């Protein structure tokens, strides 16, 4: 046998591990919006888009990790709501100092995700069912804690997290950016991230090579819950209230953002950079529809259609690739 490698084209190595098509879609979408509305490219509108994208983007990070491992988290939006209510409840109703608002929101998200992970890996209930159940439980719990009404009036320190603008940049955008950088690094460059992708790619291979699949899965759902907690914290501090209906249907947008960012619906591939582009596409789309005064009901329809279209495109690409 010879040792010389066959002359084959070197595969393109993408430094950020995302699909280039999604970036093209984002640019085209921005150009179209600019042509349709004179306000689109203004600084304040761009900051608006980023602000709206921050909550969805953090949720989409959680969705990306879980989907890349061939899992699913449908409870993201509800857990966001629970986190927002729980944080507000601790400081407003129980009168605890403001840092408890942060800790409480993050803890509620983490705890919900932790329960998801335990049920999925220890009792072997499908993720689809467990997180669908959690979607109902978390939303119901949020309504119980808040007696069905938004908890208004947070300390100014907390409100700063949602409404402060250091250097003119909204705090949620800064939090979003920091979370994205850290989670991108973990997914693309660490063993934890690599093993997440491998579990989604071939669970048997992961197990055979000594990766502790069940423990890893548990940690992924807890991580996803923590992301929902951060998103809940952003939501709560931005609107200055713990609203039990916060994040309703957000899982739809978050999962869509992850998929159009290049995450493989069946696991094995995904990047946070790609998901950021996906989240921005959703943000620009919603913002554009707002600028054109399209009713929010239609926006909901548009997001659903984008999700179906993105998955179809992915399937179509794969069919072409394996032909």
């Amino acid at each position, binding site marked *: *046998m*010879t*040792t010389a*490698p*066959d002359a*084959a084209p*070197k*595969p393109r*190595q993408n430094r950020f591990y995302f699909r280039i098509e999604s970036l093209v879609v984002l640019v085209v979408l921005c150009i179209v919006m600019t042509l349709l509305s004179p306000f689109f490219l203004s600084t304040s509108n761009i900051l608006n888009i980023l602000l709206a994208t921050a909550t969805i983007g953090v949720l989409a990070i959680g969705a990306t990790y879980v989907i890349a491992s061939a899992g699913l988290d449908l409870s993201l939006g509800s857990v966001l709501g629970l986190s927002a209510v729980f944080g507000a409840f601790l400081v407003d109703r129980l009168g605890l100092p403001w840092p408890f608002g942060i800790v409480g929101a993050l803890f509620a998200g983490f705890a919900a995700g932790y329960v998801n992970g335990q049920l999925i890996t220890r009792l072997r209930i499908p993720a689809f069912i467990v997180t669908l159940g959690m979607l109902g439980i978390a939303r119901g719990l949020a309504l119980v804690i808040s007696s069905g009404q938004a908890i208004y009036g947070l300390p100014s320190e907390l409100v700063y997290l949602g409404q402060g603008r250091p250097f003119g940049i909204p705090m949620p955008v800064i939090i979003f950016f920091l979370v994205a950088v850290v989670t991108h*690094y973990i997914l693309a*460059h*660490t*063993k*934890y991230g*690599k*093993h997440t*992708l*491998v579990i989604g*790619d*071939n669970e*048997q*291979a*992961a*197990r*055979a*090579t*000594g*990766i*502790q699949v069940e423990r890893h899965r548990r940690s992924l759902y807890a991580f996803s819950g923590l992301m929902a907690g951060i998103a809940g914290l952003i939501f709560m501090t931005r609107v200055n209230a713990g609203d039990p209906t916060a994040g309703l249907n957000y899982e739809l947008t978050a999962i869509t953002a992850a998929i159009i960012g290049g995450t*493989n619906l069946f696991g*094995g*591939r995904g990047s946070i950079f790609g998901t950021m582009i996906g989240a921005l596409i959703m943000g620009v789309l919603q913002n554009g529809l707002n600028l054109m005064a399209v009713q929010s009901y239609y926006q909901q329809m548009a997001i659903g259609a984008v999700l179906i279209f993105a998955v179809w495109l992915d399937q179509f690409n794969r069919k072409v690739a394996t032909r």
Partner: protein
Amino acid sequence: MSLLELNGIEKRFGSVEALRGVTLSVEAGSVVGLVGDNGAGKSTLMKTITGIYQPDGGAIRFDGQEVTADTPGHIRSIGIEMIYQDLALAPQQDVASNIFLGREPTKTLFGFIPGLIDRPKIVAEAERMLQRLGARVPSVLSPVGVLSGGQQQSVAIARALTFGPKLVIMDEPTAALAVREVDHVLDLIRELKRQGIAVILISHRLTDVFAVSDRIVALRQGQIIADEVTAETSMNQVVSHIVGS
């Protein structure tokens, strides 16, 4: 003392007794051919050694160490590698990542952020390993899923040999290969033996087993029914052990 010692290994799946008291030893640097009909318990026995399955009875010692019911990760770390029949590769990850699966070397970023996978090292070592094996793989950056069966086999072998194992278990390594590739795998087994690495070869192809093994062990219905020196047995005799006539 033997490198690997199995003593009365039992394994049940519900009411099915897959392994019924298997006792077997493998010397360092020897090649043991493990033969048996479908469902005789060959793969189950190997997966019990590698920690994928937990035995219901019996004991496993490796290199003088008790390793019964250990985890797959620890089994690999003490020097037992297995090349699975389905290869156990992650198709969307590249060749280099697959070779280092579960054992990625790490470095520190900017001197204080830990846990960064050392990509340059992985790529360089993967290339070196494949070259040493004489494997034809287009690029270590290709996803494994686009490679041919023989190329994927090379990746699985490279993964098993990269970390200096003492025992390599091969489950039907030649089943899906072209003739020329089969010879290559057999040469490789001889080379491992020369280096003092023990090999357990599971195969339906008795000619392959006779070509490289020192001993042939036949398994039937979860029990060892023959353990013979290859030079002192014959193809007919082994076949009769397998079918039980």
